[in-house]
Protein backbone atom coordinates (compact mmCIF):
# COMPACT_ATOMS: atom_id res chain seq x y z
CA UNK A 1 0.00 0.00 0.00
CA UNK A 2 1.31 3.44 -0.86
CA UNK A 3 -0.12 6.59 0.60
CA UNK A 4 -0.09 9.65 -1.63
CA UNK A 5 0.55 13.22 -0.63
CA UNK A 6 -0.30 16.56 -2.21
CA UNK A 7 3.34 17.69 -2.01
CA UNK A 8 5.83 16.60 -4.65
CA UNK A 9 9.13 17.57 -6.21
CA UNK A 10 8.90 19.36 -9.57
CA UNK A 11 11.91 17.74 -11.19
CA UNK A 12 14.75 15.37 -10.44
CA UNK A 13 17.41 18.03 -10.88
CA UNK A 14 15.43 20.26 -8.51
CA UNK A 15 15.45 17.51 -5.88
CA UNK A 16 19.21 17.00 -6.25
CA UNK A 17 19.90 20.75 -6.03
CA UNK A 18 17.65 21.05 -2.97
CA UNK A 19 19.48 18.13 -1.31
CA UNK A 20 22.86 19.62 -2.24
CA UNK A 21 21.66 22.98 -0.92
CA UNK A 22 20.63 21.30 2.31
CA UNK A 23 24.17 19.96 2.69
CA UNK A 24 26.05 23.07 1.56
CA UNK A 25 26.17 25.52 4.41
CA UNK A 26 28.35 28.27 5.79
CA UNK A 27 30.69 25.60 7.17
CA UNK A 28 31.76 24.67 3.64
CA UNK A 29 33.46 28.05 3.32
CA UNK A 30 34.25 28.92 6.93
CA UNK A 31 34.87 25.59 8.71
CA UNK A 32 36.52 23.24 6.18
CA UNK A 33 39.57 25.39 5.29
CA UNK A 34 40.23 26.09 8.96
CA UNK A 35 39.95 22.38 9.84
CA UNK A 36 42.39 21.60 7.01
CA UNK A 37 45.07 24.06 8.13
CA UNK A 38 44.75 22.92 11.75
CA UNK A 39 44.96 19.21 10.93
CA UNK A 40 47.84 18.51 8.60
CA UNK A 41 47.12 20.77 5.60
CA UNK A 42 46.89 18.74 2.41
CA UNK A 43 47.29 15.49 4.37
CA UNK A 44 43.91 16.20 6.00
CA UNK A 45 42.27 15.29 2.71
CA UNK A 46 43.22 11.61 3.20
CA UNK A 47 41.25 10.97 6.43
CA UNK A 48 38.60 13.33 5.07
CA UNK A 49 38.11 11.20 1.93
CA UNK A 50 38.21 7.95 3.90
CA UNK A 51 35.52 9.26 6.25
CA UNK A 52 33.44 10.45 3.28
CA UNK A 53 33.68 6.98 1.74
CA UNK A 54 33.06 4.93 4.89
CA UNK A 55 30.73 7.18 6.85
CA UNK A 56 29.40 10.03 4.69
CA UNK A 57 28.21 8.13 1.64
CA UNK A 58 26.69 5.24 3.67
CA UNK A 59 24.83 7.71 5.89
CA UNK A 60 23.48 9.52 2.84
CA UNK A 61 22.11 6.24 1.47
CA UNK A 62 20.73 5.22 4.86
CA UNK A 63 18.85 8.50 5.23
CA UNK A 64 17.57 8.63 1.65
CA UNK A 65 16.41 5.00 1.87
CA UNK A 66 14.78 5.42 5.31
CA UNK A 67 13.00 8.56 4.12
CA UNK A 68 11.67 6.98 0.95
CA UNK A 69 10.59 3.88 2.88
CA UNK A 70 8.67 5.98 5.44
CA UNK A 71 7.16 8.12 2.68
CA UNK A 72 5.61 4.96 1.23
CA UNK A 73 3.40 4.89 4.34
CA UNK A 74 2.65 8.60 4.23
CA UNK A 75 5.24 9.65 6.83
CA UNK A 76 7.35 12.75 6.24
CA UNK A 77 9.09 13.21 9.59
CA UNK A 78 11.46 10.93 11.46
CA UNK A 79 9.29 9.87 14.46
CA UNK A 80 6.96 7.89 12.23
CA UNK A 81 9.52 7.14 9.51
CA UNK A 82 11.52 5.28 12.16
CA UNK A 83 8.29 3.78 13.49
CA UNK A 84 7.56 2.35 10.03
CA UNK A 85 10.92 0.54 10.17
CA UNK A 86 10.44 -0.98 13.62
CA UNK A 87 7.31 -0.93 15.74
CA UNK A 88 8.96 -0.72 19.16
CA UNK A 89 7.87 2.48 20.91
CA UNK A 90 11.49 3.46 21.56
CA UNK A 91 12.18 4.39 17.92
CA UNK A 92 9.35 6.92 17.69
CA UNK A 93 11.00 8.88 20.48
CA UNK A 94 14.44 8.56 18.93
CA UNK A 95 12.77 10.09 15.87
CA UNK A 96 11.99 13.16 18.00
CA UNK A 97 15.63 14.17 17.42
CA UNK A 98 14.75 14.64 13.73
CA UNK A 99 12.28 17.39 14.61
CA UNK A 100 13.95 18.84 17.70
CA UNK A 101 17.29 19.32 15.92
CA UNK A 102 15.69 21.14 13.01
CA UNK A 103 13.74 23.47 15.28
CA UNK A 104 16.72 24.28 17.50
CA UNK A 105 19.28 24.62 14.71
CA UNK A 106 16.95 26.75 12.58
CA UNK A 107 16.46 29.02 15.61
CA UNK A 108 20.11 30.12 15.70
CA UNK A 109 20.97 29.45 12.06
CA UNK A 110 18.40 32.00 10.90
CA UNK A 111 20.22 34.65 12.94
CA UNK A 112 23.54 33.64 11.39
CA UNK A 113 21.91 33.81 7.97
CA UNK A 114 20.59 37.30 8.70
CA UNK A 115 24.15 38.56 9.29
CA UNK A 116 24.93 37.72 5.67
CA UNK A 117 21.88 39.72 4.52
CA UNK A 118 22.99 42.69 6.57
CA UNK A 119 26.59 42.43 5.33
CA UNK A 120 25.35 42.22 1.73
CA UNK A 121 23.59 45.52 2.29
CA UNK A 122 26.59 47.13 3.99
CA UNK A 123 28.96 45.90 1.26
CA UNK A 124 26.83 47.49 -1.44
CA UNK A 125 26.32 50.65 0.62
CA UNK A 126 30.11 50.98 1.04
CA UNK A 127 29.90 51.03 4.84
CA UNK A 128 33.36 49.47 5.19
CA UNK A 129 35.19 51.67 2.64
CA UNK A 130 37.91 53.82 4.17
CA UNK A 131 37.55 52.19 7.58
CA UNK A 132 40.45 50.63 9.47
CA UNK A 133 40.75 46.88 10.06
CA UNK A 134 39.91 47.45 13.73
CA UNK A 135 36.77 49.44 12.89
CA UNK A 136 35.49 46.79 10.47
CA UNK A 137 36.20 44.07 13.02
CA UNK A 138 34.48 46.08 15.76
CA UNK A 139 31.47 46.54 13.49
CA UNK A 140 30.74 42.82 13.90
CA UNK A 141 31.23 42.87 17.69
CA UNK A 142 28.90 45.86 17.94
CA UNK A 143 26.42 44.20 15.59
CA UNK A 144 25.98 41.06 17.68
CA UNK A 145 26.01 43.16 20.87
CA UNK A 146 23.01 45.06 19.43
CA UNK A 147 24.94 48.35 19.64
CA UNK A 148 23.56 49.12 16.16
CA UNK A 149 20.09 49.44 17.64
CA UNK A 150 17.47 47.20 16.12
CA UNK A 151 19.24 46.60 12.80
CA UNK A 152 20.21 42.99 13.66
CA UNK A 153 16.65 42.32 14.80
CA UNK A 154 15.28 43.81 11.56
CA UNK A 155 17.50 41.63 9.34
CA UNK A 156 16.75 38.59 11.49
CA UNK A 157 12.99 39.11 11.14
CA UNK A 158 13.40 39.75 7.40
CA UNK A 159 15.30 36.49 7.06
CA UNK A 160 12.74 34.62 9.12
CA UNK A 161 9.80 35.95 7.08
CA UNK A 162 11.62 35.10 3.84
CA UNK A 163 12.27 31.53 4.99
CA UNK A 164 8.71 31.09 6.17
CA UNK A 165 7.23 32.53 2.97
CA UNK A 166 9.32 30.20 0.78
CA UNK A 167 8.32 27.23 2.95
CA UNK A 168 4.66 28.19 2.66
CA UNK A 169 4.98 27.91 -1.14
CA UNK A 170 5.66 24.18 -0.77
CA UNK A 171 8.33 21.85 -2.07
CA UNK A 172 8.25 22.45 -5.81
CA UNK A 173 6.89 26.01 -5.63
CA UNK A 174 9.19 27.23 -2.86
CA UNK A 175 12.09 25.08 -1.68
CA UNK A 176 12.97 23.72 -5.11
CA UNK A 177 12.76 27.12 -6.82
CA UNK A 178 15.03 28.63 -4.13
CA UNK A 179 17.57 25.83 -4.69
CA UNK A 180 17.42 26.21 -8.48
CA UNK A 181 18.27 29.91 -8.16
CA UNK A 182 20.54 29.72 -5.10
CA UNK A 183 22.84 26.82 -5.95
CA UNK A 184 23.96 27.96 -9.44
CA UNK A 185 24.51 31.52 -8.14
CA UNK A 186 26.43 30.21 -5.13
CA UNK A 187 28.71 28.20 -7.41
CA UNK A 188 29.13 31.16 -9.81
CA UNK A 189 30.04 33.61 -7.01
CA UNK A 190 32.30 30.96 -5.47
CA UNK A 191 34.20 30.49 -8.74
CA UNK A 192 34.59 34.25 -9.27
CA UNK A 193 35.90 34.81 -5.73
CA UNK A 194 38.17 31.76 -5.97
CA UNK A 195 39.72 33.10 -9.19
CA UNK A 196 40.24 36.50 -7.56
CA UNK A 197 41.71 34.89 -4.44
CA UNK A 198 44.14 32.65 -6.29
CA UNK A 199 45.29 35.37 -8.70
CA UNK A 200 46.00 37.87 -5.92
CA UNK A 201 49.50 39.31 -6.49
CA UNK A 202 51.89 40.55 -3.82
CA UNK A 203 52.35 44.32 -4.11
CA UNK A 204 49.11 44.77 -6.00
CA UNK A 205 45.92 46.06 -4.33
CA UNK A 206 47.71 46.19 -0.98
CA UNK A 207 48.41 42.43 -0.88
CA UNK A 208 51.61 41.41 0.91
CA UNK A 209 51.75 37.84 -0.44
CA UNK A 210 50.45 36.06 -3.54
CA UNK A 211 47.09 34.32 -3.17
CA UNK A 212 48.90 31.13 -4.15
CA UNK A 213 50.89 31.40 -0.89
CA UNK A 214 47.66 30.68 0.99
CA UNK A 215 46.83 27.76 -1.29
CA UNK A 216 50.35 26.43 -0.83
CA UNK A 217 50.02 26.67 2.95
CA UNK A 218 46.61 24.98 2.96
CA UNK A 219 47.55 22.14 0.64
CA UNK A 220 51.12 21.33 1.77
CA UNK A 221 50.70 17.88 3.29
CA UNK A 222 52.10 17.18 6.73
CA UNK A 223 52.00 13.39 6.66
CA UNK A 224 53.29 13.12 10.23
CA UNK A 225 49.78 14.02 11.43
CA UNK A 226 48.00 11.31 9.52
CA UNK A 227 47.95 8.71 12.30
CA UNK A 228 46.90 11.18 14.95
CA UNK A 229 43.43 10.31 16.37
CA UNK A 230 42.65 14.03 16.69
CA UNK A 231 43.02 14.48 12.93
CA UNK A 232 40.72 11.53 12.20
CA UNK A 233 38.13 12.81 14.63
CA UNK A 234 38.31 16.23 13.00
CA UNK A 235 37.89 14.67 9.54
CA UNK A 236 34.96 12.50 10.66
CA UNK A 237 33.34 15.50 12.34
CA UNK A 238 33.78 17.66 9.25
CA UNK A 239 32.26 15.02 6.94
CA UNK A 240 29.44 14.50 9.36
CA UNK A 241 28.48 18.17 9.68
CA UNK A 242 29.06 19.13 6.06
CA UNK A 243 26.60 16.56 4.72
CA UNK A 244 23.77 17.61 7.09
CA UNK A 245 23.26 14.00 8.15
CA UNK A 246 21.67 13.17 11.49
CA UNK A 247 19.18 16.00 11.22
CA UNK A 248 16.09 14.36 9.73
CA UNK A 249 15.88 16.77 6.79
CA UNK A 250 17.27 14.31 4.21
CA UNK A 251 14.67 11.72 5.27
CA UNK A 252 11.94 14.33 4.89
CA UNK A 253 13.03 15.39 1.37
CA UNK A 254 13.42 11.73 0.32
CA UNK A 255 10.00 10.79 1.69
CA UNK A 256 8.46 12.53 -1.32
CA UNK A 257 10.26 10.16 -3.72
CA UNK A 258 8.36 7.11 -4.95
CA UNK A 259 9.70 3.60 -4.47
CA UNK A 260 10.38 2.98 -8.13
CA UNK A 261 12.44 6.17 -8.49
CA UNK A 262 16.17 6.31 -7.91
CA UNK A 263 17.74 7.45 -4.67
CA UNK A 264 21.23 5.96 -4.96
CA UNK A 265 22.40 8.18 -7.82
CA UNK A 266 20.57 11.24 -6.47
CA UNK A 267 22.32 10.84 -3.12
CA UNK A 268 25.71 10.53 -4.84
CA UNK A 269 25.11 13.57 -7.02
CA UNK A 270 24.02 15.77 -4.10
CA UNK A 271 26.84 14.48 -1.86
CA UNK A 272 29.60 15.04 -4.42
CA UNK A 273 28.21 18.48 -5.28
CA UNK A 274 28.64 19.38 -1.62
CA UNK A 275 32.23 18.11 -1.78
CA UNK A 276 32.89 20.25 -4.86
CA UNK A 277 31.67 23.36 -3.06
CA UNK A 278 33.57 22.50 0.11
CA UNK A 279 36.93 21.30 -1.15
CA UNK A 280 37.32 23.03 -4.51
CA UNK A 281 35.64 26.37 -3.74
CA UNK A 282 35.90 26.40 0.04
CA UNK A 283 39.67 26.01 0.00
CA UNK A 284 40.21 28.74 -2.58
CA UNK A 285 38.61 31.83 -1.03
CA UNK A 286 38.98 32.46 2.70
CA UNK A 287 42.54 31.27 3.28
CA UNK A 288 44.23 32.53 0.05
CA UNK A 289 42.75 36.04 0.43
CA UNK A 290 43.42 36.23 4.18
CA UNK A 291 47.00 35.00 3.90
CA UNK A 292 47.56 37.29 0.90
CA UNK A 293 47.02 40.29 3.19
CA UNK A 294 47.79 39.09 6.69
CA UNK A 295 50.43 36.39 6.30
CA UNK A 296 50.45 32.82 7.59
CA UNK A 297 51.20 33.45 11.29
CA UNK A 298 48.39 35.98 11.73
CA UNK A 299 45.87 33.73 9.99
CA UNK A 300 46.88 30.74 12.13
CA UNK A 301 46.36 32.87 15.23
CA UNK A 302 43.01 34.23 13.99
CA UNK A 303 41.58 30.83 13.08
CA UNK A 304 42.19 29.29 16.50
CA UNK A 305 38.53 29.96 17.30
CA UNK A 306 37.20 28.95 13.87
CA UNK A 307 36.57 30.70 10.58
CA UNK A 308 33.60 32.86 11.53
CA UNK A 309 35.73 35.81 12.63
CA UNK A 310 37.82 35.66 9.47
CA UNK A 311 34.68 35.56 7.30
CA UNK A 312 32.77 38.40 8.99
CA UNK A 313 35.39 40.52 10.73
CA UNK A 314 38.40 40.38 8.45
CA UNK A 315 37.33 39.65 4.87
CA UNK A 316 35.04 42.74 4.57
CA UNK A 317 38.07 44.91 5.40
CA UNK A 318 40.36 43.04 2.98
CA UNK A 319 37.82 43.53 0.19
CA UNK A 320 38.06 47.32 0.66
CA UNK A 321 41.66 47.10 -0.59
CA UNK A 322 40.25 46.32 -4.04
CA UNK A 323 38.74 49.78 -4.60
CA UNK A 324 35.12 50.97 -4.17
CA UNK A 325 33.48 49.08 -7.05
CA UNK A 326 35.28 45.75 -6.76
CA UNK A 327 35.04 45.89 -2.98
CA UNK A 328 31.26 46.33 -3.14
CA UNK A 329 30.90 43.54 -5.70
CA UNK A 330 33.24 41.13 -3.87
CA UNK A 331 31.59 41.80 -0.51
CA UNK A 332 28.16 41.33 -2.04
CA UNK A 333 29.22 38.10 -3.82
CA UNK A 334 30.85 36.67 -0.65
CA UNK A 335 27.90 37.35 1.64
CA UNK A 336 25.35 36.46 -1.05
CA UNK A 337 27.16 33.13 -1.48
CA UNK A 338 27.01 32.57 2.28
CA UNK A 339 23.35 33.61 2.30
CA UNK A 340 22.42 31.07 -0.38
CA UNK A 341 24.45 28.42 1.46
CA UNK A 342 22.49 29.28 4.60
CA UNK A 343 18.97 29.61 3.26
CA UNK A 344 19.01 26.37 1.27
CA UNK A 345 19.92 24.65 4.55
CA UNK A 346 17.43 26.47 6.77
CA UNK A 347 14.60 25.70 4.34
CA UNK A 348 15.46 22.02 4.71
CA UNK A 349 15.10 22.42 8.49
CA UNK A 350 11.53 23.63 8.12
CA UNK A 351 10.18 20.79 6.02
CA UNK A 352 10.33 17.95 8.62
CA UNK A 353 8.52 20.09 11.20
CA UNK A 354 5.89 21.06 8.65
CA UNK A 355 5.58 17.48 7.43
CA UNK A 356 4.95 16.30 10.99
CA UNK A 357 2.14 18.81 11.63
CA UNK A 358 0.56 18.13 8.23
CA UNK A 359 0.72 14.33 8.57
CA UNK A 360 -0.31 14.03 12.19
CA UNK A 361 -2.63 16.94 12.84
CA UNK A 362 -3.98 17.65 9.34
CA UNK A 363 -2.62 21.20 9.23
CA UNK A 364 -2.44 23.01 5.91
CA UNK A 365 0.93 23.78 4.37
CA UNK A 366 0.49 27.52 5.01
CA UNK A 367 -0.54 27.04 8.62
CA UNK A 368 2.32 24.68 9.35
CA UNK A 369 4.86 26.98 7.63
CA UNK A 370 3.84 30.08 9.58
CA UNK A 371 3.64 28.07 12.81
CA UNK A 372 7.20 26.90 12.17
CA UNK A 373 8.17 30.55 11.63
CA UNK A 374 6.49 31.52 14.92
CA UNK A 375 8.31 28.71 16.77
CA UNK A 376 11.65 29.88 15.34
CA UNK A 377 10.81 33.45 16.36
CA UNK A 378 10.30 32.40 19.98
CA UNK A 379 13.22 29.97 20.10
CA UNK A 380 15.58 32.24 18.18
CA UNK A 381 14.97 35.41 20.18
CA UNK A 382 17.29 34.38 23.05
CA UNK A 383 20.13 33.78 20.54
CA UNK A 384 19.66 37.32 19.20
CA UNK A 385 19.27 39.08 22.55
CA UNK A 386 21.85 37.09 24.51
CA UNK A 387 24.39 36.23 21.82
CA UNK A 388 27.28 37.54 23.90
CA UNK A 389 26.18 35.46 26.87
CA UNK A 390 26.85 32.19 25.08
CA UNK A 391 23.26 31.26 24.17
CA UNK A 392 24.03 30.97 20.45
CA UNK A 393 26.98 28.66 21.09
CA UNK A 394 24.92 26.58 23.52
CA UNK A 395 22.23 25.96 20.88
CA UNK A 396 24.94 25.10 18.38
CA UNK A 397 26.56 22.63 20.75
CA UNK A 398 23.49 20.68 21.90
CA UNK A 399 21.37 20.83 18.77
CA UNK A 400 23.97 21.31 16.06
CA UNK A 401 26.54 18.85 17.40
CA UNK A 402 25.46 16.38 20.09
CA UNK A 403 21.94 15.66 18.75
CA UNK A 404 23.22 15.00 15.24
CA UNK A 405 25.75 12.41 16.35
CA UNK A 406 23.32 10.65 18.71
CA UNK A 407 20.56 10.49 16.12
CA UNK A 408 22.85 9.32 13.31
CA UNK A 409 24.24 6.56 15.53
CA UNK A 410 20.76 5.30 16.42
CA UNK A 411 19.39 5.51 12.88
CA UNK A 412 22.38 3.58 11.53
CA UNK A 413 21.86 0.83 14.13
CA UNK A 414 18.15 0.76 13.29
CA UNK A 415 18.78 0.55 9.55
CA UNK A 416 21.62 -1.98 9.58
CA UNK A 417 20.75 -4.17 12.55
CA UNK A 418 17.05 -3.82 13.41
CA UNK A 419 15.37 -3.13 10.09
CA UNK A 420 18.05 -5.43 8.73
CA UNK A 421 20.85 -4.86 6.26
CA UNK A 422 19.26 -7.16 3.64
CA UNK A 423 16.00 -5.18 3.60
CA UNK A 424 17.96 -1.98 3.86
CA UNK A 425 20.25 -2.90 0.97
CA UNK A 426 17.20 -3.78 -1.13
CA UNK A 427 15.62 -0.44 -0.24
CA UNK A 428 18.75 1.51 -1.30
CA UNK A 429 18.99 -0.38 -4.60
CA UNK A 430 15.31 -0.30 -5.50
CA UNK A 431 14.86 1.82 -8.65
CA UNK A 432 18.58 2.66 -8.63
CA UNK A 433 20.13 4.17 -11.74
CA UNK A 434 23.62 3.09 -10.67
CA UNK A 435 25.05 -0.20 -9.52
CA UNK A 436 26.35 0.17 -5.99
CA UNK A 437 29.35 -2.03 -5.12
CA UNK A 438 28.28 -4.72 -2.62
CA UNK A 439 31.27 -3.63 -0.52
CA UNK A 440 29.06 -0.83 0.83
CA UNK A 441 26.58 -3.34 2.25
CA UNK A 442 29.24 -4.47 4.72
CA UNK A 443 30.46 -0.94 5.28
CA UNK A 444 26.93 0.11 6.30
CA UNK A 445 26.57 -2.87 8.60
CA UNK A 446 29.94 -2.83 10.33
CA UNK A 447 32.12 0.16 9.55
CA UNK A 448 29.72 3.13 9.64
CA UNK A 449 28.36 2.36 13.14
CA UNK A 450 31.94 2.00 14.41
CA UNK A 451 32.92 5.35 12.87
CA UNK A 452 29.88 7.02 14.42
CA UNK A 453 30.58 5.37 17.76
CA UNK A 454 34.14 6.70 17.59
CA UNK A 455 32.91 10.22 16.85
CA UNK A 456 30.49 9.97 19.78
CA UNK A 457 33.10 8.61 22.19
CA UNK A 458 35.55 11.25 20.99
CA UNK A 459 33.03 13.93 21.91
CA UNK A 460 32.40 12.56 25.43
CA UNK A 461 35.17 14.50 27.26
CA UNK A 462 33.80 17.75 25.85
CA UNK A 463 30.26 16.65 26.71
CA UNK A 464 31.26 15.91 30.32
CA UNK A 465 32.97 19.28 30.60
CA UNK A 466 29.89 21.05 29.21
CA UNK A 467 27.43 19.27 31.50
CA UNK A 468 29.38 20.10 34.63
CA UNK A 469 29.79 23.76 33.68
CA UNK A 470 26.72 25.49 35.12
CA UNK A 471 28.33 28.83 35.97
CA UNK A 472 26.51 30.92 33.35
CA UNK A 473 22.77 31.41 34.05
CA UNK A 474 22.07 32.29 30.38
CA UNK A 475 23.62 29.02 29.27
CA UNK A 476 21.65 27.06 31.86
CA UNK A 477 18.47 28.84 30.69
CA UNK A 478 19.25 27.91 27.07
CA UNK A 479 19.73 24.26 28.05
CA UNK A 480 16.44 24.20 29.94
CA UNK A 481 14.68 25.78 26.95
CA UNK A 482 16.13 23.17 24.60
CA UNK A 483 15.17 20.39 27.02
CA UNK A 484 11.65 21.84 27.10
CA UNK A 485 11.50 21.80 23.29
CA UNK A 486 12.63 18.18 23.20
CA UNK A 487 10.04 17.14 25.78
CA UNK A 488 7.37 19.22 24.01
CA UNK A 489 8.04 17.51 20.67
CA UNK A 490 8.05 14.12 22.43
CA UNK A 491 4.63 14.91 23.88
CA UNK A 492 3.33 15.86 20.41
CA UNK A 493 4.63 12.54 19.09
CA UNK A 494 2.82 10.75 21.93
CA UNK A 495 -0.45 12.57 21.10
CA UNK A 496 0.01 11.82 17.39
CA UNK A 497 0.62 8.15 18.17
CA UNK A 498 -2.56 7.92 20.29
CA UNK A 499 -4.47 9.78 17.58
CA UNK A 500 -3.26 7.37 14.92
CA UNK A 501 -4.28 4.39 17.06
CA UNK A 502 -7.72 5.88 17.68
CA UNK A 503 -8.26 6.63 13.99
CA UNK A 504 -6.85 3.28 12.88
CA UNK A 505 -4.31 5.07 10.68
CA UNK A 506 -1.38 2.76 11.28
CA UNK A 507 -0.39 0.91 8.13
CA UNK A 508 2.54 -1.41 7.71
Amino acid at each position, binding site marked *: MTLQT*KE*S*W*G*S*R*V*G*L*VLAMAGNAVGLGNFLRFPVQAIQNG*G*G*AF*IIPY*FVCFLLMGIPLLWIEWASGRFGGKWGHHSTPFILDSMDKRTFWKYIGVFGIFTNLAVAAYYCYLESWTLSYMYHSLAGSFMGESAETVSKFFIDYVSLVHGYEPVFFWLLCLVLNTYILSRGL*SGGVEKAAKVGMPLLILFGILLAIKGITLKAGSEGAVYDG*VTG*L*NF*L*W*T*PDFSTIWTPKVWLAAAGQIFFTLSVGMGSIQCYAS*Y*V*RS*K*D*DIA*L*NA*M*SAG*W*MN*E*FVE*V*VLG*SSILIPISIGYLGIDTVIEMTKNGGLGLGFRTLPYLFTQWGPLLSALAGFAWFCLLFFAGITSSLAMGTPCMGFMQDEFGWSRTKSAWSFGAAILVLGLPTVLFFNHGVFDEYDYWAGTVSLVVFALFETILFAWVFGIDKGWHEINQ*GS*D*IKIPVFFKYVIKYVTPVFLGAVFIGSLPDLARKITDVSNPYVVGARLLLLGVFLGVSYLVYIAYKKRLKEGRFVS
Partner: protein
Amino acid sequence: MNTSALITMLVSEMVIIAFTAFFFVKVLTIPPKAEPDSFSENDQEPR
Protein backbone atom coordinates in the same frame (compact mmCIF):
# COMPACT_ATOMS: atom_id res chain seq x y z
CA MET B 1 53.43 26.29 -4.87
CA ASN B 2 55.64 23.44 -3.80
CA THR B 3 55.32 20.15 -5.67
CA SER B 4 53.67 18.12 -2.90
CA ALA B 5 51.03 20.83 -2.27
CA LEU B 6 50.35 21.16 -5.99
CA ILE B 7 50.00 17.40 -6.50
CA THR B 8 47.75 16.99 -3.43
CA MET B 9 45.53 19.86 -4.53
CA LEU B 10 45.28 18.86 -8.18
CA VAL B 11 44.62 15.17 -7.47
CA SER B 12 42.00 15.93 -4.81
CA GLU B 13 40.20 18.56 -6.83
CA MET B 14 40.29 16.59 -10.08
CA VAL B 15 38.85 13.50 -8.37
CA ILE B 16 36.06 15.59 -6.85
CA ILE B 17 35.30 17.48 -10.06
CA ALA B 18 35.24 14.22 -12.04
CA PHE B 19 32.83 12.46 -9.65
CA THR B 20 30.63 15.56 -9.30
CA ALA B 21 30.38 15.99 -13.06
CA PHE B 22 29.89 12.26 -13.71
CA PHE B 23 26.99 11.88 -11.28
CA PHE B 24 25.33 15.18 -12.18
CA VAL B 25 25.49 14.46 -15.92
CA LYS B 26 23.91 11.08 -15.21
CA VAL B 27 21.09 12.78 -13.26
CA LEU B 28 20.51 15.14 -16.18
CA THR B 29 20.65 12.56 -18.94
CA ILE B 30 18.95 9.42 -17.60
CA PRO B 31 15.39 9.39 -18.99
CA PRO B 32 12.60 9.68 -16.40
CA LYS B 33 10.78 6.51 -15.35
CA ALA B 34 7.24 5.81 -16.55
CA GLU B 35 4.45 7.82 -14.95
CA PRO B 36 3.39 8.10 -12.22
CA ASP B 37 6.83 9.16 -11.00
CA SER B 38 7.92 11.42 -8.15
CA PHE B 39 8.10 14.63 -10.17
CA SER B 40 5.25 16.92 -11.14
CA GLU B 41 6.87 18.95 -13.94
CA ASN B 42 6.60 16.11 -16.44
CA ASP B 43 2.98 15.27 -15.56
CA GLN B 44 0.34 15.41 -18.28
CA GLU B 45 -2.16 16.90 -15.85
CA PRO B 46 -1.46 19.03 -12.79
CA ARG B 47 -1.58 17.11 -9.45
